[in-house]
């Protein structure tokens, strides 16, 4: 038997699922081939871990904890706000309400802004006139004075 053939059947050989003839052929090959023998030993050790898996014992307080968890879930579900039907109805209402409120607020603020915009512009115009007259902050207003100084000196 070739190495490749043995390596294809090794797991079934370990599980004792092969016919007698096949098993004895593999056995004789393993006695001769170091490489296949190494693979067999490794696989046997690893695969046998599955036979030694210990059965777990549940925690003695498992039922108490489970019961608490179920109560907690039931309490939560009993609160109207967490009920899916409530959420299904409440969600679109809440979204529409927020949209309407923001629309109304937008219109009110827009109107307010329009009404005040004229007074605002006047105030700015008045203020800039006062400042430019007194402090020459406005370049156009200050031009005459600068020209007077420059031209006056030159003349």
């Amino acid at each position, binding site marked *: 038997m070739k190495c490749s053939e043995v390596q294809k059947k090794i797991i079934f050989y370990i599980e004792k699922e092969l016919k007698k003839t096949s098993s004895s052929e593999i056995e004789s090959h393993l006695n001769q081939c170091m490489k296949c023998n190494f*693979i067999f030993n490794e696989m046997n050790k690893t695969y046998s871990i599955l036979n030694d898996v210990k059965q777990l014992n549940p925690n003695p307080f498992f039922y108490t904890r489970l019961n608490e968890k179920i109560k907690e879930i039931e309490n939560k579900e009993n609160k109207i706000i967490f009920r899916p039907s409530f959420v299904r109805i409440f969600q679109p209402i809440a979204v529409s309400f927020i949209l309407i409120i923001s629309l109304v607020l937008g219109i009110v603020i827009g109107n307010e802004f329009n009404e005040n915009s004229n007074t605002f512009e006047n105030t700015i115009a008045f203020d800039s006139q006062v400042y430019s007259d007194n402090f020459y902050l406005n370049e156009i207003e200050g031009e005459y004075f600068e020209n007077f100084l420059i031209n006056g000196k030159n003349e």
Partner: protein
Amino acid sequence: MSDKELLDRIRNKDKGAFKHLVDNYNSLVLNICNSFLHNFEDSQDVSQEVFIEVYKSIDKFRGESKISTWLYRISVNKSLNHIRKNKRNAIFRSFETIIKSQKKETENLAESNESENDFENDKRSRVLYEALDSLPQNQKIAFNLSKLNNMKYKEISEVMNVSVSSVESLIFRAKKNLQKKLINIYKEN
């Protein structure tokens, strides 16, 4: 108490009957979860989820299969969902275990032969479970239920909703794939 009687009592919110069910199947559910998750704490959390699901959906269970089959099916599904949900965490956890194992490796150098054996077994089981986890889902379910939970092919076929011959074929292919993966690891080393 028969399955039907037990179901009727649980449907009527009889806490005693539910406790009876939990006490009877807790160990089986825990071990099924553990055969997929390989972690006691996670398996306990998932078994709790299994029984919560049972309690919540007992009205939907028509009693066409045995309670045990229904419970096994929920356990397998919940465990696979848990694996899917925690895939990202698992990457970090495996990174953590690599670091821990490296740390352990250096610590173990000076320790006795006994702990060396433990370390080797840990390494072997990690390799084995990684190979098992990488199997296609149906092969993994069939193999785990048969090999790690000693379930008969008939029971597995009921849990998986497939024929007995499909279960045989799934387990055969699972073993072939497992063998291939393990041999590749040995050849690499």
